[in-house]
């Protein structure tokens, strides 16, 4: 849902009709619903007309705007704020669309506008351009470490832990009971590192 709000804001900033992006759900058993969603979405786009035309933006100006938008969502600053916002939403456990878009609006607006106004960094940021070693741990990560460490998986059921908001989300975050995950770590520990190195080397 955070993604929906993020894209909504970026498209609005770029002056593109946000209806052109749609995030929907259809389970494996809901074929008729899926067909309805696709047909409606295609008709809506057909009515809107080609990208840029309905928004009154010429082709090359459109490309420039879009490239700036792409650079914005790929910039580390916006993605960091986006990640942290999702984390706080996940912790509070309130998943209504209105609440999510309000949080995104409030936290991300500044970062998006900032990134959009900055001049366009050329090149596809598929892999981040600069491999900077993180000179200093910036504020967010330090603050993230202070967050209630849940590294120690407790065997007890979550109810006993004094978490104020006993929201369903809280239960979902309960780690696997101690015995199993420990077993898993043992299993994984000796397995992954050897593999990890070779795969990583081969990859780049």
């Amino acid at each position, binding site marked *: 849902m955070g993604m929906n709000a993020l894209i909504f804001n970026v498209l609005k900033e770029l002056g593109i009709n946000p209806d052109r992006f749609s995030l929907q759900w259809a389970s494996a058993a809901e*074929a008729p619903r899926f067909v309805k969603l696709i047909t409606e979405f*295609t008709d809506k786009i057909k009515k809107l007309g*080609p990208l840029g035309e309905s928004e009154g933006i010429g082709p090359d100006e459109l490309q420039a705007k879009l*490239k700036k938008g792409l650079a914005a969502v790929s910039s580390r600053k916006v993605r960091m704020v986006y990640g942290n916002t999702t984390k706080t939403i996940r912790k509070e456990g309130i998943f209504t669309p209105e609440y999510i878009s309000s949080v995104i609006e409030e936290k991300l607006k500044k970062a998006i506008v900032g990134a959009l106004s900055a001049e366009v960094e050329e090149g596809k940021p598929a892999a981040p351009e600069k491999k900077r070693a993180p000179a200093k741990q910036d504020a967010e990560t330090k603050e993230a470490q202070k967050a209630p460490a849940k590294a120690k998986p407790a065997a007890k059921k979550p109810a006993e832990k004094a978490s104020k908001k006993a929201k369903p989300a809280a239960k979902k975050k309960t780690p696997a009971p101690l015995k199993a995950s420990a077993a898993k770590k043992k299993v994984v520990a000796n397995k992954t590192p050897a593999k990890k190195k070779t795969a990583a080397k081969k990859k780049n």
Partner: protein
Amino acid sequence: MSKEEYNPKVLGFLCNWCCYAAADAAGVSRYQYPPNLRTIRVMCTGRVDPSFVLRGFVEGADGIFTGG
């Protein structure tokens, strides 16, 4: 593309377990729907990166449908 029957290009990210499976089921029951959708299968909508959506628009999609 000629003006009167404008054919939009729609890019779709479909989650393998939900929407992609629903699309398969729609095929089995032979439901018909407009052929403008081009699907990219992902394991979950969680995988869809905001940059994929923007890049889709850069590459000329008139609409992007993400189905979880």
